[in-house]
């Protein structure tokens, strides 16, 4: 078992002919993901790496290849349109890697998607991986190992750090999800925790948050009332100055809201094991699992 993606996932890549799109489509394919189609308008009929058919539209690609997941590398100006196109074509899992999409565009997309049953991960995220089965995103595959720890995070490199520490402790991951660093995005930390909690193969959950917004607090509330599995957490930005955007568009303390201290407090209150510093995540997982 796993969450959202497994060996049967059929992936299409929107923006497969671009520099990042082609590089990461290749890397996902190499990892073992079934990359069944690519979409780039006006490039329909061509083939990617001589094997993957390219279509002009997502609906043509879905009709011809039964793709059920999409990975989006379309440039920010056109990314909102690409997400809507995927949803309209019936894609069930949309993973938007693109960084720099205007907030207003994501605001409209999020509302439009409320009428669809699909799940959007991202944008501005590393993607999702079920080790050994399916990788959709830009994470380095080899640091992962199949196992029982579910990971969800707002940051790319912090996910890699956590995953690496878990792997170095001789453990592995069930599914790792990067929800993205933008203020308005699809899948929330709480929803990801819900998925991991419902997955019988996930024995512990690692949740990595950062300053800005209130998703950590919302997840903490859910964890306190529903989650029986051990949850380990780390929140980045405890020393970030207020009013400054720390790299991610969503990582900002404004009007005293969204501080790491408030998040850590809420998580501790919910019974979450909070790692004091970044280097302690792996050991906290081992401790929580009682191994």
């Amino acid at each position: 078992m796993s969450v959202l993606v497994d060996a049967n996932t059929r992936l299409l890549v929107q923006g497969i002919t671009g520099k990042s799109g082609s590089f990461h489509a290749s890397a996902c394919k190499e990892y073992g993901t079934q990359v069944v189609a690519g979409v780039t308008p006006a490039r329909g009929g061509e083939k990617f790496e001589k094997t993957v058919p390219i279509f002009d539209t997502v609906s043509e690609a879905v009709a011809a290849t039964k793709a059920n997941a999409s990975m989006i590398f379309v440039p920010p100006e056109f990314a909102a349109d690409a997400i809507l196109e995927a949803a309209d074509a019936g894609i069930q899992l949309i993973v938007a890697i693109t960084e720099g999409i205007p907030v207003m565009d994501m605001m409209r997309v999020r509302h439009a998607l409320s009428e669809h049953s699909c799940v959007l991960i991202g944008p501005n995220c590393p993607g999702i991986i079920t080790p050994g089965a399916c990788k959709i995103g830009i994470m380095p595959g080899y640091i992962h190992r199949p196992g029982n720890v579910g990971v969800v995070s707002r940051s790319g490199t912090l996910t890699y750090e956590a995953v690496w520490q878990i792997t170095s402790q001789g453990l592995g991951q069930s599914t790792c999800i990067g929800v993205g660093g933008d203020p308005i995005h699809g899948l929330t930390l709480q929803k990801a925790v819900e998925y991991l909690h419902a997955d019988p193969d996930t024995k512990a959950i690692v949740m990595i948050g950062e300053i800005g917004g209130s998703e950590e607090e919302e997840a903490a509330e859910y964890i306190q009332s529903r989650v029986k599995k051990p949850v380990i957490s780390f929140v980045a930005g405890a020393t970030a100055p207020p009013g400054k955007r720390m790299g991610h568009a969503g990582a900002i303390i404004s009007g005293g809201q969204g501080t790491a201290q408030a998040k850590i407090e809420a998580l501790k209150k919910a019974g979450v094991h909070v790692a004091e510093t970044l280097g302690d995540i792996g050991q906290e997982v081992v401790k929580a699992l009682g191994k």
Partner: protein
Amino acid sequence: MNIHEYQARDLLAAAGVPVPRGAVARSPEEAESIARSLPCNSFVVKAQVHAGGRGKGHFQDGYKSGVHLVKTPHQVRDVASHMIGNTLITHQTGPEGKPVHAVLVGESTDIARELYLAIVLDRSSGCPVIVASQQGGVEIEAVAEKSPEAILREVIHPGLGLQPYQARKVSIFLGFPSTGLRAPCRLLHAAYRLFIEKDCSQVEINPLAVTKGGDVVALDAKLGFDDNALFRHKEIQELQDPSQEDPRDLAAAEHHLNYIGLDGNIGCMVNGAGLAMATLDLIQAAGGKPANFLDVGGGASEEMITAAFRLLQGDPAVKAILVNIFGGILKCDILAQGMVAACRTAPPRVPIIVRLQGTNVEAGRKILKESGLPLLPAEGLMEAADKAVAAAAGKKGK
């Protein structure tokens, strides 16, 4: 991105939000002639800087306050001559202050009531929200803390936009009589249109004044813009004023580096925003203070790493540099080669601590070791932070 008050005022006026009469002046003479053209007998002169708290601020030479109320065009000229070319220090500028190159000269308004109005993005609902209060002229956070019931938050459907009934609801909450809703409703629609059309991150009008004559005007306003949307707003990009920015930030922007200047002495170079933030936390946990936030991104090129190094080395406050890289797509050996190349073109001025982890880490460490450069390796995260703090304090790391 931030802009000046006079620019925000012009944008609001163009969108149909009433503002007091006035104009921007870049010389005392211009300030006087603007005052002469205004049909009033009392004037406001406001120093234009990207910071709040101007009224309570002071200038570098001791001249008091960045906001003056005077009676004659001649006095306007005198005040402007003190402000223009001077540096204003407020609680938001830091001790170095911000240079004043222009002043806003306007008619002074007879105020009956000061209100608060803002349109911002509500992250949890993913919608724009109007924030309104009858307690204007003060910081909204203070109102929120003392009397949260005095604030109305009206969530707007992003597909439908601001509805007339919502504008009426907000206006009534702001204390307008039911027979006098037309002007505030028109103002609300105009401000909302501006928020959407210009991809604003915030439109804050504080105070929104009701004059003794019964007019509604935006006395002061702060506009913020979504950096991600600037590509479709050339007219907003042109409003940028480099004189108001940290010179280190400007140099970083030139090389597409994600950089924020801070006030410590340990320079940082990290890949990924989350890891960069966590690195700042580590440095402070080790008892040090970071000089900056710097995310070189997942796919940093050798050229970017060189530029980043030059930026950190060129900052006189920096006493040690901590490089913290998790090699994923960016492989450690490639990064090490880039660092060695950068050190050859600009020899290190301060100790450099390097913590590499991830793809091809052994090859990367080997390259650094064999380069003969004075780079201090670290494997653990806390170990790296400890070494950087010790080096910045002038001590030899263990």
